[in-house]
């Protein structure tokens, strides 16, 4: 119906002249893609295509065109058919192109909320993974990581968390197709926290732009997976013109960005532990002062002996404390080489690249090596346009145990080892097992020599698209994309390792993931005088398959660890997958480029839900008013250059993260007595349905003096029918097959609400021939609130975490710490019993009540960047910051003021001068340090997450063109870049401020400080 209506309109076009032309940049004559072309004196216009070409109908009597593009100087040029416009660099124009994957829009005509990363920012900062480029660049987007290991999986949150179990990760779309994202780790074993990021398989230098879609207007077209935003990645493609060869290389090194969990040195630790023993004798055993001293002296050697590292000439032992930080951490190195070729003729354009990257981590056995190849080809013939793109990646990742694992470097440094445990025997050989005198009887350095975890990942992303221009502005396109990833992970614990002795354990996990995606689209984009219409109809299917093969070999007689040599082998395999089919449609209309309206609709069917709940409907409506183009704004035009008000509302959804959650299954593989038995693993819910996410957004875009742009958005995002793995009683006898194995049931329970605002201010401070300076500030705040759980249930407690109605989802639950009890020196807690005694304190935790002691929500976070160029020098500074958040120190084993601490590392926050000295000590800020103390989760262990970080710094020197041309070069640039160079944070925050999303920190590898030197050559 809609299309039929459009066809009828065609005949009524007004008298006008059809013209076409090309826009190129002054810098190398590259086509300018997405430049806006506007007929002066009207609001009619268009956007240049991929070759910089444009076609436009100019009404009679109009003779000038206005050309605009971000980063290039706006020009007004007389109309002439076949015109070639050369645009010069200038940061004066602030309009940008929003790539949604279902069409490209000028920001000035876009009705939704989205932001793109300045492509310039993408280039220099060396990061393995694309996600790192997003940090601090776009308001409302939070990038966090639980591991600093090369190739590790990060988390991206767009406008807070909108789901609990169904996932909070945005949808990733590469060149218009949703792709595999998340963790590619084959073993998914928990041996390491880092995982293998699917995004790390992309060479970030192949990326042209990244757009983050934040509201419903554009996201609803992605339907059931768009609730958490969409990240649209566009890769580079070839441009008509001479063939360019570009070479880029960088080298550098990295170390820890912060002083991670400082620990007491040997002497301080010994002094503190002696005090702990003495206090134990005094207050627990009631000994006299003198006896207590003797007791401490007698026992201290058990806990804090100074290790013997060797013997001098006369045979006397040489004693030295062990410096585990020095032993466990090293400087990481990275190098990167890439060459690209691009160019093309009238009908055929290409872009190809090859790259090699290698990075080693800051702890042993962490490394990443990656080869990528990319080819993108476009060919036009008649009414057809064919596009083929192929991306190939081979990646070798070496992983090390992290978290609280016994071989984790971090946990050994901050927990298991102490200055009194040893890595080397006096004869210089590596200590093993009990010889280390550490609490876990592990020498990590020894284990690193005898264990390894290596992944070999191959990814192929191929897509073929044929577009047929049926008639006029009506296009039909068919696109097929196949995304295939295989991962072979080898985990070896050899015959001498702690985990492998005596016969070694060799595990090989071979997994492959494939996703076949088909898209059929019918589109119609046309202007009729002042009426501009853009319509789209589509049908899509997606089939995802995951296969898993596992081989285990033990009882090896020698040191060759292939499975044919094993005494005992076993194998496992599994297969799973899902399918998705969708119908979609969209109509955007604008009148005179002043009044905009849009409608979108999508219907998704998924295999993850029972038949009755399979199909879901998602839609959005949006509108905008570009009041900057109104007549009545003319008087203030010299100040307020442009202005637009946007409103959108829509519904999108989230699928359950598990593929078969609606079924209760008797699962096999419950082995006993040589047989495979079965048991009900997991609790299915046939009534499970989509999570619904309703998003409202209102935004304002203003441009002042043609040089300052301000974007403001306010949003409310409500998730209902939230899928939650509701903990259920263990008494009925169900259990989960995954850690922590406790029974849960997936339910559409409750709702969550996120609301907040985002502001971006970009200013071209100075713009002269030789000097330019651009500043961009973005900040935002998201408030998250759990609004309903399930039935009468209003809270879910899991350890230190509480999810309570009316509170942010990530809230902390524990006793409220009331300082040191002067009489006993113990930790005192407020009773909080809801009576008049609530503010009284007790040292007996069983008398006190736990309360919500804080949450992980920040009151403000964002980024500030400055980019300066002066003649041949360019300089960029990018800060990120966050205010008002709290984290919880999840290393509760160390909170006991003397218990486990006697066997391992003692955090430097224990200060012997601040501990309680004896009965009546009212000035102590720390409780009595005493052997055998216990610990409680209390507000004492909250940490402020406020920070300011110099996220990146770049300094580049470009050789003048007339110098380099002598060497046959078109460009030569040398640069230095640093990431996470400086961090300002509270001393109480002992971990990295960019932490896990839930704010409960244990032993995650902190962010890395990286220094890079790079070279860029163009031929």
């Amino acid at each position, binding site marked *: 119906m809609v299309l039929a209506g459009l066809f009828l309109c065609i005949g009524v076009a007004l008298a006008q002249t059809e013209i076409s032309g090309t826009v190129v940049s002054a810098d190398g004559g590259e086509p300018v893609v997405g430049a806006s072309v506007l007929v002066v004196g009207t609001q009619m216009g268009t956007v240049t295509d991929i070759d910089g070409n444009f076609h436009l109908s100019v009404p009679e009597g109009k003779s000038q065109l206005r050309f605009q593009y971000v980063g290039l100087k706006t020009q007004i040029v007389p109309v002439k058919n076949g015109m070639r416009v050369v645009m010069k660099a200038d940061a004066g124009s602030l309009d940008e192109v929003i790539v949604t994957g279902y069409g490209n829009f000028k920001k000035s005509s876009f009705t939704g909320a989205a932001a793109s990363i300045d492509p310039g920012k993408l280039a220099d900062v060396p990061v393995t993974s694309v996600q790192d480029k997003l940090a601090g660049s776009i308001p409302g987007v939070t990038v966090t990581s639980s591991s600093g290991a090369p190739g590790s999986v990060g988390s991206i949150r767009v406008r807070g968390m909108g789901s609990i179990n169904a996932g909070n990760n945005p949808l990733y779309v590469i060149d218009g197709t949703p792709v595999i994202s998340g963790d590619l780790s084959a073993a998914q074993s928990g041996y390491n926290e880092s995982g293998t990021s699917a995004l790390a398989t992309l060479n970030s230098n192949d990326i042209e732009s990244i757009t983050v879609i934040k509201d419903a207007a554009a996201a609803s077209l992605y339907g059931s997976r768009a609730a958490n935003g969409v990240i649209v990645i566009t890769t580079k493609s070839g441009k008509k013109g001479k063939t360019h060869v570009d070479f880029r290389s960088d080298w550098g090194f990295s170390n820890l960005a912060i002083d991670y969990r400082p620990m007491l040195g040997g002497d301080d630790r010994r002094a503190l532990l002696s005090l702990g023993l003495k206090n*134990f004798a005094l207050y627990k055993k009631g000994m006299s002062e003198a006896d207590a001293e003797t007791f401490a002296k007698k*026992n201290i050697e058990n806990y804090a002996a100074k290790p013997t590292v060797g013997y001098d000439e006369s045979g006397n032992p040489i004693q030295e404390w062990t410096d585990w930080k020095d032993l466990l951490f090293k400087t990481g190195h990275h190098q990167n080489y890439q060459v690209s070729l691009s160019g093309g003729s009238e009908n055929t354009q290409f872009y190809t690249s090859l790259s090699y990257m290698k990075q080693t981590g800051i702890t042993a056995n962490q490394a990443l090596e990656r080869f990528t190849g990319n080819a993108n080809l476009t060919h036009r013939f*008649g*009414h*057809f346009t064919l596009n083929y793109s192929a991306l190939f990646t081979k990646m070798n990742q070496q992983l090390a145990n992290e978290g609280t694992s016994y071989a984790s470097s971090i946990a050994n440094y901050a927990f298991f080892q102490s200055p009194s445990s040893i890595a080397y025997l006096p004869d210089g050989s590596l200590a093993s097992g*009990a010889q280390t005198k550490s609490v*876990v*009887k592990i020498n990590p350095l020894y284990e690193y020599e005898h264990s390894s975890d290596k992944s070999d990942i191959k990814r192929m992303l191929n897509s073929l698209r*044929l577009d*047929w221009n049926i008639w006029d502005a009506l296009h039909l396109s*068919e696109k097929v994309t196949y995304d295939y990833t295989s991962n072979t992970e080898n985990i070896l614990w050899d015959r001498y390792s702690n985990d492998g*002795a*005596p016969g070694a354990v060799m595990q090989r996990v071979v997994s492959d993931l494939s996703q076949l995606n*088909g898209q059929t689209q019918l589109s119609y984009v046309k202007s009729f005088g002042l009426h501009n219409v853009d319509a789209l109809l589509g*049908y899509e*299917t997606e089939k995802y398959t995951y296969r898993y093969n596992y081989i285990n070999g033990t009882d090896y007689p020698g040191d060759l660890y292939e499975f044919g040599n094993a005494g*005992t082998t076993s194998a496992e395999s*599994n*297969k799973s*997958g*899902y399918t998705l089919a969708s119908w979609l449609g969209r109509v955007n209309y604008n009148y005179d480029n002043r009044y905009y309206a849009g409608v979108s609709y999508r219907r998704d069917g*998924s*295999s993850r839900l029972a*038949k009755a709940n*399979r199909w879901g409907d998602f839609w959005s409506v949006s509108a905008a008013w570009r009041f900057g183009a109104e007549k009545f704004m003319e008087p203030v035009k010299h100040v307020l250059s442009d202005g637009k008000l946007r409103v959108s509302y829509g519904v999108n959804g989230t699928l359950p993260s598990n593929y078969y959650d609606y*079924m*209760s*299954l*008797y*699962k096999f593989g*419950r082995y*006993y*007595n*040589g*047989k*495979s*038995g*079965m048991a*009900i*693993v997991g609790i299915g819910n046939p009534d499970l349905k989509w999570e619904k996410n309703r998003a409202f957004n209102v935004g304002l875009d203003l441009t002042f003096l043609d040089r300052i742009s301000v974007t403001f958005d306010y949003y409310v995002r409500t998730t209902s029918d939230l899928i939650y793995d509701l903990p*259920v*009683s*263990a*008494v*009925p*006898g*169900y259990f989960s097959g995954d850690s*922590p*194995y*406790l*029974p849960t*049931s997936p339910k559409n329970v409750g709702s969550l609400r996120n609301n907040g605002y985002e502001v971006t201010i970009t200013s071209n401070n100075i713009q002269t021939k030789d000097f330019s300076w651009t500043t961009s500030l973005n900040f935002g705040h998201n408030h998250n609130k759990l609004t309903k759980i399930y039935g009468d249930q209003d809270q879910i407690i*899991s*350890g230190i975490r509480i999810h309570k109605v009316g509170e942010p989802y990530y809230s902390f639950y524990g006793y409220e710490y009331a300082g040191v009890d002067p009489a006993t020196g113990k930790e005192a807690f407020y009773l909080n019993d809801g009576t008049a005694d609530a503010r009284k304190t007790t040292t007996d935790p*069983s*008398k006190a009540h*736990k309360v919500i002691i804080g949450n992980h929500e920040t009151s403000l976070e964002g980024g500030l960047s400055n980019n300066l160029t002066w003649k041949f020098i360019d300089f960029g500074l990018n800060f990120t910051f966050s205010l008002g958040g709290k984290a919880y120190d999840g290393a509760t084993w160390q909170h006991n003021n003397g218990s486990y601490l006697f066997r391992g590392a003692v955090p430097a926050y224990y200060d012997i001068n601040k501990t309680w000295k004896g009965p009546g000590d009212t000035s102590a800020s720390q409780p009595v340090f005493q*052997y*055998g103390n*216990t610990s409680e989760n209390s507000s004492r262990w909250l940490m402020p997450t406020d920070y300011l970080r110099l996220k990146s710094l770049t300094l580049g020197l470009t050789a003048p063109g007339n110098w380099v041309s002598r060497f046959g070069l078109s460009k030569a640039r040398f640069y230095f870049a640093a990431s996470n160079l400086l961090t300002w944070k509270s001393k109480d925050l002992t971990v990295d401020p960019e932490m896990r999303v839930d704010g409960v920190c244990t032993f995650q590898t902190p962010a890395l400080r990286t220094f890079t030197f790079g070279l860029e050559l163009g031929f």
Partner: protein
Amino acid sequence: MKRTYKNIYTWMLAAAVAFGLASCGDDFFDQQPSDGVDAGKALKNSSDLETARTGMYQALKGSSNFTDYYGAQMFLYGEMHGEDLQYNQNFGSNRAGFYYKMEYTSASSFSQSTAIWQSPYMVIGSANRIIEAADGGKLSDKTEAAAAIAQYRAEALVLRAMATFDLTRIYGKTYTEDNGASLGVPLVTKVLDSNEKPGRNTVAECYAQVIKDLKEAISSGALMTTSSKENVGYINLNAAKALLARVYLTKGDWADALSTAEDVIDNSGKQLWTRDQYVAAWGKDNRDHFNEMLFELSVTNTKDWNDRDGIAYLYAEDGDNGIGYSDVCATKNFVDLLAQDPADIRADVFLKATQDEGDKVFGGAKVYLNKMPGVGGDPRYANVPMLRLSEVYLTAAEAAFKSGDKAKAAQYLNDVIKNRTTDTSRLVTAADITAARISLERRKELVGEGQRFFDAIRNNETITRYTDDDHRGWHDVLTEEARSYNRDYYKSLPAIPSYETDANPTLKAQQNPGYGE
């Protein structure tokens, strides 16, 4: 040229339509998992029931992820609380320290891996499904396979009783303290929906159900008659009776305890290991093994083992030759106690530390218990002993003594003593037999088998690990309360773990006293 385009278009459209239509049907959406079948259709015949039975025993045995029952914690709970074995603080891996140090103060101190809660209820849940399927009469081969179905049903009754009994004696006050008037655990005797939140029954109600289940299984005639190499790893008639005797003894029902124990002694055809057989007979392949072993958990390969988290691995020394975690060793007091009778063979079921450093600490003493000897040196393949004939004799002796029949008590106790030592002065008579003497013999005989702590609270004994620092032996420094305590100490009952009380408000309101949230 035009023609080519037309062809391309035709193909493209055909492909689009084919792709689209093929995707529309329900077939496209009906994705099935590869590792399980719909629960409602899983138990169709006796063969399915047998597969579910294997799953039930698996829950009892545990796995490296479920060590909260007989995988490890049930043994550690019974032993680490006691005075005869201890957490080996110098060499252990911290896996056995929880119930040894007793530093827990709140429900949240108890986790999935330490609280004995989830796995016993998994056993009960699995048993209930088997019983319900057997009783439902819908199994396709219910006539042809009637005997097998009845056998699986009877085994399910026994395991349900075992798990209920274990939970009751852990979380409820011991029966003799108040005749079962106080709270036990939630009784589950049918398949429950996942969202039910049952509360606690009284200890007396729990015991009544346990005894009813065991009697029904025993009288059904469906159980395999006795333990042997062929039916190793599954419940048999003698095992069911031995368990019932243990239940009666714990309940303080001396008459029934005595008659049930005597039934086993007289009718099982089993005999006590002799002194010469004793040390080697623990090996699962030893020819005398089944003389005494009434029921054990069977481990055969890397699929059905509990790997390094199983109790056998925790007991074994991380030494020069063997592999293990050295988590548990004998206390110095217990080594001294055994040394009082140099002829007692039971000292030899402990092994000396093979590592010099360990040997130095223990002064050459035999401290590592070897009741689950490794197969080819690897304790991960060891079977786990659950019920033995000597316990039945000791039960008979104690029940007879407490019913006043001292002659019979002395007779059964001497049966054990003379098979363990050549020193005849250790034998007792009706005149000199005491409760303490029976208790001492029980400690020596059953050490490491997870019974000590239950015996102590049942008999209201005080457990003393060490008295003062000079007599600490190999103990870690313990809190005052943990050094010596009896059943009046609130920590003699654990808290119901917070993972349960958070999900089940009924139980949150019925928490054991003294614990915080």
